């Protein structure tokens, strides 16, 4: 069995779901209008990912191969519903701002992809580590995206005003097009560094 720390690092850096694998794009673009929303979404997804990975891994020998995808989806949907209730009870404001995207964690391809590619082939502990790594990688990506968009679009960081009032706010960045541009620029930056490293 691979070293747990290595698995976690793999999820955050080497196979970062957002920047490297480019999956789970819908929530990435939709809820990152502020850093808090982005990180909240990231952590909710992480929670679902960890438990879904754990249970898929535990059940991997019981689930027949032919109907595995529907089984995975039911496991995932169950944990999404639980997370949704927790948010409604303890963090109602975050729940309200994430809105529709909480139930949509079910169809986040990252979770199904990890269940299929990792949890259904590895033991429970490695699967939990994979869930933590992938989840944190996703959270970091969403957090960075949220920070950049919030800073440029509203002049705040974590809801604290940092730019002077007189500084013009580029409202476009908290709206839909800003999400595409910010992610494009971040990925281009990453590509640039990678090209440089290779050269």
């Amino acid at each position, binding site marked *: 069995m691979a070293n747990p720390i290595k698995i976690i690092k793999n999820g955050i850096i080497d196979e970062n779901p957002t920047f490297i694998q480019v999956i789970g794009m*819908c929530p990435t*673009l939709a809820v990152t209008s502020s850093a808090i929303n982005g990180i909240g979404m990231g952590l909710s997804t992480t929670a679902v990912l960890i438990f879904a990975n754990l249970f898929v891994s535990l059940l991997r020998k019981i689930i027949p191969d032919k109907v595995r995808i*529907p089984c995975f*989806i039911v496991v995932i949907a169950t944990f999404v*519903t639980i997370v949704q209730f927790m948010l409604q009870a303890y963090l109602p404001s975050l729940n309200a701002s994430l809105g529709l995207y909480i139930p949509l964690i079910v169809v986040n391809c990252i979770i199904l992809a990890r269940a299929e590619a990792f949890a259904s082939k590895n033991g429970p502990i490695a699967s939990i580590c994979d869930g933590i790594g992938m989840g944190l990688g996703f959270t970091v990506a969403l957090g960075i995206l949220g920070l950049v968009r919030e800073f440029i679009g509203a002049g705040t960081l974590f809801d604290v005003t940092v730019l002077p009032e007189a500084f013009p706010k580029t409202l476009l960045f908290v709206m839909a*097009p800003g999400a*595409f541009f910010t992610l*494009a620029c971040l*990925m*281009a930056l990453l590509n640039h560094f990678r090209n440089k490293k290779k050269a």
Partner: protein
Amino acid sequence: MYLILLLLAGIFVNNYVLSQFLGICPFLGVSKKVDTAAGMGMAVIFVIVLACAASWLVYNLILVPLHIEYLYNIAFILVIASLVQFVEMFLKKAAPALYQALGVFLPLITTNCAVLGVAVLNMQKEYNFIESIFNGIGGAAGFALAIVLFAGIRERIADNDTPKAFDGFPMALVTAGLMSIAFLGFSGLIKL
């Protein structure tokens, strides 16, 4: 009249891809060629309309009478997954030509969040059966329109000389961003 407005709002104003970020994965993934994009668009329209009808029936005839509305998420995803499977089997038998055209895209649609998204939105907004279907057609047509236009633009960009760091995904995202700005022009056009 209201239904037509609902339809147009779905296509232009609340475009699922460009203003609500639903269905981004297939939007970025299957948009390199106009033909495949059109195929995906047609398959999505087909499945979303059926899913809207089926999820409305399941919610209002099964979940509400049994007071288990909180299970909607699990119920909807199961409905969609089995619906996709069923459509695939039905098309294979009944319309092989259509199956050939849509075949590869059908399994992908289960994890297209636009399908689940529209079903959940219909439920949250408490649309009646007819409104749900029209909302579904509008949203799906909006998706098809966006993905075909996007594929058209990407085909033309493919041979152009772009900055090296922007190759591939970043360029596609910039394109999508510009399209999204264009669609912002429709906002406020229809108020429901």
